[in-house]
Structures are given as C-alpha cells and as structure tokens.
C-alpha cells in the first residue's frame, strides 16, 4: 500500500537540514506521499529506507507478459477488486486446449474454428490469443502437435502444459523464441522448472493441491528469485477454483501480500467436462471475477460473441467511456445524392451502426451530434439528443452542401423526435429507421429514392 507522509517521515534523518528545498523533513515527506516530489531529492536517505520505499511502491499485483511481437500480451497489474473503484487494466485472455492424444481431425477442427472466429468489435481484435498444448505422454505426437499449430498460420501465443522436463526442453527448442508460457511448476519439479524459465524470463505456471501448498510453493520459487508467475486455480471443483481465484486476488490486493500478487489461470475445459453451455457460464464467471487466462475446449461464435462482449465491457475504464468524435462520417463513398443517417457519439453505438451501414453497401453520410457520449436512449433521456440538437448539428455542419438528398434517417428508438426535427429543419424529410441497427442493411437497400 502507498505510504503516508508520516510513514515516510519516520524514514528521514529528521534533521531539517533543508537541502531538499523544504523547510522540514515533515514537509518534504508530506509532499513525497502526495506524489509531488521524488524521494531522491533528499540526499540523506539511508539505503535501507530507500529499499523500504521502493518495496511500498511496487504494485501489489505484478504485471507479467508472455508471447512475442504480435502475440505479446500482458496480464495482472490490477489494483482494485471492483472495477468501479478505479478500473481493471489487463483483460483476461482466452486459450483453446490441444493435446497429443487428440485425433488429427479434432486438432484440425479446432484450428479451423480458431481461424474462423476472428473479428473486430469496437476497434478491438477478437480472437483466441493462446493455444494451450497439453502433454499427456506421447512425446512424438506432442512435438508434432506443436509443429502443426505453429505451421497453421494462426497468430497465437503458446502455453506448454507439460511437467516432464525433458519433453519440455524439446518443446522449447521449437517455440522457445516465441516466449511461451510454461506450465507448470510443482513442488517436485520447481527448481528445474525455474531453471528452464529463468533465462528467457518465461511466464511460469505454478500448480499445487490447494491454496496452502500453492502459497508455500510460490514462496519457494520467489526464494529462487523468480517472479514471472501465473497461479493455477485448480480443477478439483468449480467451487474450489472460484474460491481460489478470489482468495488469490484478495490476498494480494486486500491483505497486501505479494506472495499471491500474480495473475491466475483457470482450466475451464476441465471444470465444464465437455458441456459447451457450462463452459460459457464458467468462462463468464471467471471473466467477471479474477481469471487471467481462461482455457476453453474450443472456440466458436456461440462462445465468442458473449464472452468477448462481456470482456470488452468489464475492462472498459469507468472514468473514460469510449467516445467517437462528433461529426459526419462518409460510409461506402457517399456522393451528392446520398442520404443522411443520425446516431450518437457513444463508441459502442457508433461502431455497431457504422458496421451495419458498411454491410448494407449503401453510400451514406453518417452523422453523430455531441450526445454526451451516451447511447441513443440514454442520451435522449438525459436531454442530450433532442430535435433541436439534431437540427443544429445538421445546420452547423457542411452536410447540406455535400449532399442534395434531404432524407434524414433517425434511430427507431427516438421516433418521437421526428416532428421536432422537421420543425427545425425546413426542407428535410425525417424518416424513422428500425429500432435495431442490424435491420439497417435491409432497410437501406429497400428504401425508395436513395439508390
């Protein structure tokens, strides 16, 4: 936890020599605590005091990374237990599990699914980020599996789920340069595992039977001066895995005990036991609460659409909602006969609507007045999207010179605004669009007089 001015004062020599530029050590300490000045401005701090201070300023939960280049991801570094307290920072990542005992067709099918589920939502690329490669005893097939995934052309990071050191070494000779996650260290092998991970600073999964044992194992690994860790929540039961995920995060952030100050991995595939809908339920739970890597059996749109949407929401910074600049956006190369569409400047809404307009292939001018960054109904209810706001936006933009078309399509949810807008915009015809943007392609394609 951050130190108070008084805590820092106790570490100064208390001589009030003024060399730091402050009249007293106390005044200086208060300023340091407030973040207004660097501690190094006092030339008389002991080394021991400096060490204490640096310890208190290292984050309670470590931020770690894995993967390389395009597939590099960060995990951890969280500072709060609830997003409204500040924000969650490093989103969880989804993995799909492969193993050496899977038939080739199954491996091929999973790879095909991973290729298929790859899209952009509100500016964020959505895809499976990790291939979890599990070793179950057949070394030749395991290495072949790694080569196959590598040759698939998929841009994924790897997680080598293998406790056999000699096999792991060979696996690392194939993908070691791509900074895979190594999983995992147990109480029996952790020294060798750390030895293997340390040189390239690979993220090391740590696995134990229960939290007491996990805690002890992490302490032992830290004694070897290794801190690039990922903690396994276990697969004994859903209840245990959830308890462990919460306890790990809480121990770090609330109890301020850095032994558990690491991200976690949840093998949802094991917990869901082949039930796809259960997998979605569990993945949702651990996306809400403290799972950092979530391993799934497979990926398809039924899983992806809710999970990536949920994750994108939960990891949005509450202090800065996503907005787009209020102005007119040309979509599908509009010309001087193209119609005008109105939406709002909430990024979620804007990207959904612009995506549908693109899909329609109908050239249009899509405008979004300053609606406070709110969704359509929220903006309307807050008085930020009214007839006069829209009329003013049209008049003050240069849209009337860009298109001769005087058809203005508004969101169906604010149909009530039609008369107001027309009053403020003589010469324009206001057309009420569908309620949901997904109906826009059909609506635009079949609308008379615009094509």
């Amino acid at each position: 936890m951050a130190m108070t001015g008084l805590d820092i004062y106790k570490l100064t020599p208390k001589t009030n020599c003024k060399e730091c530029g402050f009249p007293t050590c106390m005044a200086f300490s208060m300023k340091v605590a407030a973040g207004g000045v660097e501690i190094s401005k006092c030339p008389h701090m002991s080394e021991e005091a400096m060490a204490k201070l640096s310890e208190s300023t290292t984050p309670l939960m470590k931020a770690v990374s894995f993967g390389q280049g395009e597939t590099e991801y960060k995990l951890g570094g969280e500072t709060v237990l609830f997003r409204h307290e500040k924000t969650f920072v490093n989103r969880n990542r989804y993995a799909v599990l492969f193993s050496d005992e899977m038939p080739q067709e199954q491996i091929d099918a999973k790879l095909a699914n991973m290729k298929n589920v790859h899209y952009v939502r509100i500016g964020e690329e959505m895809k499976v980020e990790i291939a979890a490669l599990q070793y179950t005893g057949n070394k030749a097939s395991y290495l072949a599996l790694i080569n196959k995934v590598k040759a698939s052309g998929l841009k994924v990071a790897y997680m080598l789920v293998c406790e056999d050191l000699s096999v792991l070494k060979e696996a690392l000779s194939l993908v070691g340069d791509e900074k895979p996650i190594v999983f995992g260290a147990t109480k029996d092998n952790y020294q060798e595992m750390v030895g293997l991970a340390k040189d390239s600073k690979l993220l090391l999964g740590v696995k134990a039977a229960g939290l007491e044992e996990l805690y002890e194992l992490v302490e032992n690994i830290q004694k070897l001066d290794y801190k690039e860790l990922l903690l396994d929540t276990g697969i004994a039961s859903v209840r245990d895995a959830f308890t462990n995920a919460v306890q790990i995060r809480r121990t770090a952030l609330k109890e301020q005990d850095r032994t558990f100050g690491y991200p976690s991995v949840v093998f949802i595939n094991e917990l869901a036991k082949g039930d796809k809908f259960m997998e979605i339920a569990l993945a949702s739970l651990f996306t809400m609460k403290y799972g950092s890597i979530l391993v799934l059996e497979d990926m398809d749109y039924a899983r992806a659409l809710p999970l990536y949407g949920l994750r994108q929401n939960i990891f949005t910074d509450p202090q800065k909602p996503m907005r787009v600049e209020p102005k007119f956006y040309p979509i599908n190369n509009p010309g001087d006969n193209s119609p005008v569409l109105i939406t709002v400047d909430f990024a979620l809404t804007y990207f959904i609507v612009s995506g549908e307009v693109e899909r329609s292939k109908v050239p249009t001018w899509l405008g979004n007045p300053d609606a406070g960054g709110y969704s359509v109904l929220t903006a309307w209810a807050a008085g930020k999207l009214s007839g006069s706001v829209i009329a003013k936006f049209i008049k003050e933009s240069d849209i009337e010179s860009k298109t001769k078309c005087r058809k203005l399509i508004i969101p169906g949810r604010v149909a009530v605004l039609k008369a107001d807008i027309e009053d403020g915009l003589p010469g324009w015809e206001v057309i009420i669009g569908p309620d949901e943007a997904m109906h826009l392609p059909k609506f635009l394609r079949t609308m008379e007089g615009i094509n």
Partner: protein
Amino acid sequence: MAFKTSVQKYSGNVCNLELGTGEKKISLGGQNVIPFYSFDGDTGSGAKIGLEILDIYPDNWVDELKNLYGSAANNAAEWARLVEEKYSPDFICLRLVGADPNGLNKSVEECAALAIEVAKAVKLPLVIAGTQNHEKDLKLFEKVAEVLEGYNVLLLAAVEENYKTIAAAGVTAYKHKVAAESSVDINLAKQLNILINQLEVKSENIVMHVGSAAVGYGFEYVASTIDRIRLAALGQNDKTLQMPIITPVSFDTWNVKEGASTIEDTPEWGDQTERGIAMEISTAVGVIAAGSDAVILRHPRSAQTIRAFLGKLI
C-alpha cells in the same frame, strides 16, 4: 509465513423475501456476503431462475422455441403448466406484452382474466411483467393485483412515475411484492426504495430491478451498479439498498444482434438458438456474480445450465 484465508465480514445483509404460496414458494435474498463467497459467511437462498412466457403467441421468438412449446404457446395457462411440468423453474414470468398500447393494446380486464387463469394452472410463484408503458402499467398492475390476491406475486415493475399506485395497490391492498425499477444508478435505486418505504411498504416486500443490458451492450454499467449496491447494503449496512435484485435477462439478450440475427443474415455466426442461449447464459452469470438474486430467462436450456452452474457453486 503460511497462507491464511482472507475473510471479509459485513455488517449488513440482504432482506429475505418470499414469493408465491404453498409448497413451491421461494425465498430471495438473505445473504450477508457477495455471491458465492461462502468463505465469508452466509450465501442466503441463492439465485432463483424464472422462465418467461407471454400472454400472446410468441411470433418473434426463434422457431426452435416455438416448436418446443408447440400449441401450448397459444394459451398462457397451458403454456405455464407445460413449463412447470417439464422444466420446473423456480418461478414463471408472465409477460403481458399484449397490453402494450403500441401493440395489441389489450384491456386490463382481459389481461387480468388471463393472469388468474395462469395462476390457477400452476403452483409455481409468478412474476407479472408489464409493458414498460408507465400509464398502462399503472392500470394494468392495479387490476392484476386485485384479481391475484392471495397468490403473492411480484409485479415487475414500478417506476418513479407510477410507483405510488402500483406499490399501494400491489402491496398494501392485495399483499403482493413490488419490483422497483430504476435506470442503472445506485442513487436512483436508493431514492425509489425510500419513496416506496414512505408509503409504509416494508423492505421485505420490495425487489429491485436496477437496470439490465445484454453482455457487450453497456453491461459494465449494470454490473458495476449491482456491485456498488451490494457493497453498500452489506458493507455500510445501508437499509435502503438491502432488497433482493431481479434482472430480466431475456428481455435484452434476444433483441441484440448476437441473439436476434438469423443464420441467413449472418451465416458465419452459426445457429441462432445456440447464440441466443449463450447470450442469456453469459448475461445471467454476469448479473448473478455481481449480486442479482433472480434472473428471468427464455430458453429452458439456459435455465437448465444456470441451475447446474449454481449447483456447482454451493
């Protein structure tokens, strides 16, 4: 050092509320911890699951669901009986969409007659959902509350504009429960609860509906609002926020593109029913994990999954 379980004790708890009568009545709330945090204390009654049925034939629902319910969906009472026998949810949500002035605009008498038929057909507790039109709901709930006296149903929902009549008729006169609906804001939720309390309606008779959204559609505001309400209720022992929370998940999830787009429209997305179920499950888990005490779902498969999911966490 050795690991020590981190325990958080709270001074407040969520009110315990009963819905329905007889052998199948249910309790909502009662917990003094965050959902599933059994290491902290008492997790209460656990979340309850309701299945949605309509007063009219569900034309807009996916074919797979229409086939599943068959001709029963033409008659709400028969439909309710089928749901009770085959899928045994914790409660049934009868949604009176036919009363909507922008739709069929059925009379309140007609709706009330149908509601009583449904109530007689099943033993499960009922949640009666209105039209979202404040004036119509006011009259609708007044009448429905009267004819359903003795069934101890939940009226979903009263808002700032109509709470006086709905809470007075529903709770004071006919001894039902009322859901207080606010728009994703802890202060609005609190304010409406206080207003309803001022009508001499006790907190044990109030459920909160604090707003809902499908995952991906502003869901973070819903989740954080519920988080904050629960932390205030438990941590600060804020009596005005200790009512159980209900979230009508299915009212949103089947309307957003992920649940509504047909396979013809988005072939790359695959089966529509699966997507709809997936959206319901994810959204339901999301609000339950934040602190919702009851969810309304549309597909029996979703209900079955959420039930199994809850079973794994107790």
